[in-house]
């Protein structure tokens, strides 16, 4: 009993500590009103003379931008989420921003929930290669077409693709690493996003506590990593750019999985020189170059197939399997797995344990009726 009272007091002390940190000078009665408590109840809870309820504590954590797990235990949440976003970059003004961040909040919260549910006790993943060259070596030859699969298999970086996002994000969820992509069908944008977010993870930007800030050096470092991963200096150096025709350029863009614009910027950054052909195509949609000049005889429309693949909803199979196992145990409902699959929960025919109610006759006795 004494230990419990002591622990309740600790929640109050941590709440006071957080109030001093983020709302110094705030009147406790105003905070109490904000979270739906009476001033007296709030005061007693802060002083350890009364417990917070789950709802009060969640409201307080919201108001104080605090981690509920830390308020309760004094320890950081083992499933703490750290997010970095792929910033939009206006080449004309040099400004970076993430205009859709607020709108993406729910989708990111849902992805996080799927991981918390699938694996409540995450273990730390192995370290990532800290350079583009090392990452490329680990990902292996011709990694670009199965980029997401290789990230999962060889680097323990999960890749999720959903429709309701404005940009790409990388998350650290406890020990796990996840890249979350918007489903666009635009594989060259997606490849760059994967490389860019891999860079944030590999370079430890999530550990530095300012991952979401409009932070140019980190964004620049992530872009440099991505450029060297997708368009290695050595690979560009051996191309006879002036002798290249449109078909040759299309073949390179297809193989490297980048846009004509990205290729032009990389060439210009490395050499300060932009061949006329590359300059001309950089101003046009990449798919136009491919549709007009890239020729391969596989019997199927490879461009559409690649576009389809970059538009498909995607969650790692291991995560889905974790959900299936926990649904069968009754630990989880079907809602999140159905959401991952993009179907209605009622349509998901999986094994669930029966839920039984107390029979009426037993209730009569149990309630003394």
């Amino acid at each position, binding site marked *: 009993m004494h230990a419990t009272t002591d622990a309740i007091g600790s929640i109050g002390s941590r709440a006071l500590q957080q109030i001093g940190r983020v709302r110094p000078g705030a009147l406790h009665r105003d905070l109490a009103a904000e979270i739906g408590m009476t001033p007296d109840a709030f005061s007693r809870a802060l002083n350890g003379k009364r417990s917070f309820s789950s709802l009060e504590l969640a409201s307080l954590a919201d108001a104080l931008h605090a981690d509920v797990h830390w308020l309760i235990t004094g320890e950081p949440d083992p499933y703490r989420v750290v997010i970095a976003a792929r910033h939009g970059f206006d080449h004309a003004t040099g400004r970076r921003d993430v205009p859709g961040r607020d709108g993406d909040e729910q989708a990111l919260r849902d992805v996080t929930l799927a991981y918390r549910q699938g694996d409540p006790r995450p273990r730390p993943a192995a370290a990532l290669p800290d350079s583009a060259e090392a990452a490329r070596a680990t990902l292996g030859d011709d990694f670009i077409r199965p980029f997401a699969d290789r990230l999962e298999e060889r680097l323990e970086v999960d890749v999720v693709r959903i429709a309701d996002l404005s940009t790409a994000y990388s998350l650290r969820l406890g020990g796990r690493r996840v890249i979350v992509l918007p489903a666009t069908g635009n594989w060259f944008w997606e490849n760059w996003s994967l490389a860019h977010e891999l860079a944030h993870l590999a370079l430890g930007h999530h550990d530095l506590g300012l991952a979401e800030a409009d932070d140019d050096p980190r964004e620049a470092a992530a872009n440099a990593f991505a450029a060297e991963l997708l368009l290695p200096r050595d690979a560009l150096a051996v191309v006879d750019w002036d002798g290249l025709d449109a078909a040759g350029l299309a073949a390179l863009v297809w193989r490297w999985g980048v846009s004509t614009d990205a290729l032009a910027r990389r060439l210009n950054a490395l050499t300060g020189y932009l061949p006329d052909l590359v300059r001309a195509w950089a101003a046009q949609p990449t798919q136009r170059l491919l549709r007009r000049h890239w020729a391969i005889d596989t019997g199927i429309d490879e461009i559409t197939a690649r576009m389809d693949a970059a538009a498909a909803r995607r969650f790692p199979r291991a995560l889905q399997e974790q959900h299936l196992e926990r649904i069968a145990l009754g630990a989880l409902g079907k809602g999140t797995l159905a959401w991952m699959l993009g179907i209605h929960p009622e349509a998901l025919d999986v094994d669930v*344990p029966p839920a039984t109610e107390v029979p009426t006759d037993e209730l009569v006795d149990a309630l003394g009726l």
Partner: protein
Amino acid sequence: MAVLLFPDNTVLINFALFGQLDLLRRLANGHGRWCATVAAECAASARRPDLGTLAGARDIFGPPLSPTPTELRDARFLRDELASPGDHPFKHLGEAETIAVMTSRALDGIFVTDDNDAVRLATRHGVPVVRTWRLLQLAVRTNLADADAVWGYVQILRARRRGSPPGVSDRPSFDKWLAS
């Protein structure tokens, strides 16, 4: 010794919608208890014009049980196991806290909830569960209400899109369910 009856807010709202909080009081028979978050959710619901009678729920369930820090932590894990994408972060906290308190204190109690996920999770943790419909069946069985009155309650809840007893679509199927 009678067991305790713990409601979640969905059940309290149902009884308030058909204006029979007093029936719930008689069914609880002095053994009603509730957790602090459910009490707070109920107080918030009582501010809705059609649910004002919920203010009387405290007389049925008494002073709310407050969770210990360990129960607060457990409730957070349980809430994760109840949630689905799109849920507000505060949704399911009442059910989670109730299961956490009932299990950690090994209370001899029954949890009344109409949330399918709460039924599932309570069952997994060995907490006996009933839904609103079973309480209405009990009311008829113990002569606390007659079948016509309960049929009226069911129709009110159906009109408010709060479901139906299993297999009930009309009066004959209702009578059959009642006798089951």
